[in-house]
């Protein structure tokens, strides 16, 4: 239990550190949202000055950081000048959409990777493994950006599924079930791109983890006793490889979040990615800050969960 609390405290301190550094650096960035507002002829210079005073942009950064932290604790994450609302209200639906995407993609990627990796491991050195290895090598070399552009091309050619957004136009009037169907169709392209981007990496890892276990002496002797392959894989190899696979889960979340940022922008999926890009262009520091912090929270949480899973699954670690 002590270990769990320690990990929590560690994660919190880590996030605090990240936020302090990003805040300090972003405050030092040239240009701010008010410079962009000043270019807007509809807003008078007096109004801009009043806004500046209201948001205390001229205060030193530790003071502003303290204000910001207080606002985070209230769940507000500061005020977005360009969207004219609390960042919190802006953030949650976007975060939900990103999470929906990454969660589905994680599940799909693992559903592809585990069986594929196992099959490759069982056929090591034979043609099936070579073929699979070749495909993963090529997929691994295709950057996600190109992958999603290729999928976009496929979608444009075949018109099988929509090429962007989350819902079709006018979907607001649809019934719940039709809306869900619409959403599912819009999900296909981004989830597929994300999963295909991550899966080859996972496949490699699963393959080597399972191979390592299959080569272990205890399984060699189990084979010697004539225990069937399927039984060996499900009863022995998978549980034994579970540790390294769980650590990989934490790691893959970081990769997925990164890829998702790009794919959301290209496919105009209303997640954190486009929000961050727009906020960057508008120099809306509070929003950029909030998105960066949220991505850190997801990554740190993912690693924390993987760590706890590891703790729960491996009696050796619990014993320490």
């Amino acid at each position, binding site marked *: 239990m002590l270990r769990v609390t320690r990990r929590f405290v560690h994660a919190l301190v880590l996030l605090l550190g990240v936020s302090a550094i990003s805040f300090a650096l972003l405050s030092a960035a040239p240009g701010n949202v008010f410079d962009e507002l000043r270019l807007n002829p509809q807003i008078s210079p007096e109004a801009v000055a009043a806004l500046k005073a209201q948001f205390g942009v001229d205060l030193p950064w530790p003071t502003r950081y303290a204000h910001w932290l207080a606002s985070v604790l209230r769940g507000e994450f500061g005020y977005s000048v360009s969207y004219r609302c609390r960042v919190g209200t802006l953030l949650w639906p976007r975060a939900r959409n990103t999470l929906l995407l990454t969660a589905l993609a994680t599940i799909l990627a693992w559903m592809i990777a585990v069986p594929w990796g196992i099959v490759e491991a069982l056929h090591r050195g034979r043609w099936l493994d070579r073929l699979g290895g070749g495909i993963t090598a090529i997929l691994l070399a295709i950057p996600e950006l190109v992958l999603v*552009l290729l999928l976009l*091309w496929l979608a444009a050619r075949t018109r099988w599924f929509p090429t962007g957004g989350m819902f079709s136009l006018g979907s607001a009037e649809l019934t719940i079930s039709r809306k869900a169907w619409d959403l599912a169709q819009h999900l296909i392209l981004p989830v597929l791109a994300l999963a295909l981007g991550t899966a080859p990496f996972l496949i490699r890892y699963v393959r080597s983890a399972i191979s390592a276990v299959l080569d272990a002496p205890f399984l060699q002797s189990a084979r010697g006793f004539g225990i069937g392959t399927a039984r060996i894989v499900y009863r022995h190899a998978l549980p034994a490889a579970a540790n390294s696979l769980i650590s990989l889960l934490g790691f893959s979340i970081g*990769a997925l979040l990164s890829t998702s940022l790009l794919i959301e922008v290209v496919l105009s999926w209303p997640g954190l990615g486009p929000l961050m890009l727009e906020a960057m262009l508008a120099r809306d520091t509070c929003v950029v800050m909030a998105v960066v912090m949220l991505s850190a929270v997801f990554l740190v949480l993912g690693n924390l969960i993987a760590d706890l899973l590891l703790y729960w699954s491996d009696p050796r670690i619990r014993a320490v």
Partner: protein
Amino acid sequence: MPNRLRTVILISFLALLHLALLFAGFFAPYDFAQQHRDLPFAPPTRLHLVDAAGTWHAWPFVHSLRANVDGSDGYTEDVAQAYPLRLFVRGNAFQIVGPWTAHVHLFGVASPGQIFLFGTDDFGRDELSRMLFGGRISLFAGILGATAALSVGAFLGVLSGFYSGWTDAVIMRTSELFLALPWLYLLFAVRAILPLRVKTTDAFLLFIVVVGLVAWARPARLVRGIVLSARERHFALAARAMGASNFHVLRYHILPEIYVLLLTTAALLIPQFVLAEVTLSFLGLGVGEPIPTWGNLLIPMQKYSVLRSYWWLCLPAFALVLLFLAYHWASTTLQAALGEVRS
């Protein structure tokens, strides 16, 4: 395939790719900004060996293009005009390195003939030339970023592994801060700190160096691991026991262990930073028109019309994949070689 042959193929391929990009001006028949206003979206020029009369020629030639007479999109070849392919032709001046310029291009055709092996874009600019010049910037970005990340990472990693105690603690805790952000978010966060509008390519490359400096954490941790184990090797301890200075132990017993690691890490980092450039320029946060990079050359691929009718504008994506394949292959080969050396 025997291992050695494979390595030779890999190395020559990588060398060719890098030479072609480095000396883009020589391999490209046109300047990247040269427009042929009358020939937008021209398809790749075909090389012929047989002329309209059906006679064979020993040397390839091209025909000039004319817009379709019926007013529809597209071009037809004007078979009356044939221009043989020429090697080492004089053309536009281009910059080699710094102040040195040259005029000779690898290939071309006599004017008024034109040769666009990869077609042209909406301004009638030669896609092949743009790909070569663009690749040069992308590759430079990759190498610069990787160098920055590796040098800072190696320095801090050695420091951290060699002087354990609070130096180590501070460096490692800091690296955790940098690893707490997903890579692209980190890239964007750094980009958000820098001025939004990039004026020159040099300024952008400077950005990439900044991004590289921020990516030090992972190489630093790898290097630290190696230094920690090398430091405790008995031969390092033996040297210490003989009175060797820290410098001697580092220089002779520890650093040789990390060189190979740095090489394999470079093979992984260079594509990553090429991708950083590509991503930023693709999203309009990097180098903009008229200067091409592999990032902004991908922008047209978002357009339905391009995907449907002008497939040659998708070729930059394939160039990117080719570069990535070569680097992945290089890194696996290096790692395999490393494994052999270890065992």
